[in-house]
């Protein structure tokens, strides 16, 4: 059996929709761990290494990583309709829920109790993204060049509020030139 070439995985649109629907609905504060659980642990569609390979590609590409993952995995196992099934499965229910929350907020947001609660929630959400940013930035401390590039991006967008596209057109090639120089050295 082991000498036979591995059969490429084929899945139905329905199965894809179901898996990503489950991951989207259960994923609070980041869906990636939930997608991993559904695809690697529960359904065994991918090995851990294959999943990491997908993540590596999605982080290379622009856009929401999990949406890219749904598109790429969906197309590999079921073609274009697989991409659409996975993407709508991932986003359908969360979009409906977030719009219901927004509707309730529009209706009751003026109530003092709700206002206080949302003020606290905002501070909490800001604290969470601060923790995420620090987790991403901490490993850079081993490289002065990486810290300098990160500081430049932070200053351009966070402090001086420069336009995004022109800033990236300067910072990204600079960072890649430095990375190329370092990888060659």
């Amino acid at each position, binding site marked *: 059996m082991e000498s036979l070439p591995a059969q490429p995985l084929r899945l139905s649109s329905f199965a894809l929709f179901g898996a990503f629907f489950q991951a989207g609905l259960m994923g609070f504060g980041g869906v990636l761990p939930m997608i991993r659980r559904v695809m690697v642990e529960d359904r065994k569609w991918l090995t851990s290494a294959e999943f990491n390979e997908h993540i590596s590609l999605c982080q290379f590409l622009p856009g929401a990583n999990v949406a890219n993952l749904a598109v790429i995995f969906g197309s590999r196992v079921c073609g274009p309709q697989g991409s659409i099934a996975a993407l709508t499965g991932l*986003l359908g229910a969360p979009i409906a829920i977030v719009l219901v929350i927004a509707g309730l907020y529009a209706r009751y947001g003026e109530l003092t109790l709700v206002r206080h609660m949302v003020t606290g929630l905002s501070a909490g959400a800001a*604290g969470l993204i601060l923790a995420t940013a620090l987790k991403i930035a901490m490993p850079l401390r081993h490289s002065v060049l990486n810290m300098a590039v990160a500081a430049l991006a932070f200053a351009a967008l966070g402090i001086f509020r420069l336009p995004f596209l022109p800033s990236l057109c300067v910072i990204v090639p600079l960072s890649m030139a430095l990375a190329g120089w370092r990888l060659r050295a």
Partner: protein
Amino acid sequence: MTHLLALALIFAELSFLAIGGASTTLPAMERAVVHQQHWMSAQEFVRLYALAQAAPGPNMLAVTLFGWEVSGIPGAIVATLAFLLPACALAYVMGHLWLRFRDRQWRKVVQAGLVPVTAGLMVAAAYLLVRDAATDWRALVLAALVAVGCLFTKRHPLWFLGLAALAGLVGFR
């Protein structure tokens, strides 16, 4: 109608520029919808971001709520699709080419070059959201406590959001 067109253009551009994930574009989103278009206040921006965090699903759903704030349900749909489709179309194409360039040197250089830029943009996003959310010292302390708690414990993020909402309810009168 002009609002919908403006939403589509703003978020479609950011879709291609969202390196390392959707959150790196938050400084650019805040700049566009708060300071250039004047569609909402900075406080409203961070409130909508927080409401999206309280719902299940990807972090990018904040985009849906920014669109909703500007033009209701049509705005939500336009902003979401504009932010999704360009990057997803690119992902669809690149997904098929990945095996060809995965082991190339330039791929490693590009990826290594994006890491510090992503980190700097995330810190900028965090700085701006904390500044917008910190309407007074209590909110600032709360944000700092949540960040410390999240960094030094294994608790689920939703747990901290719930506590922060509760703290707002009892502490912000």
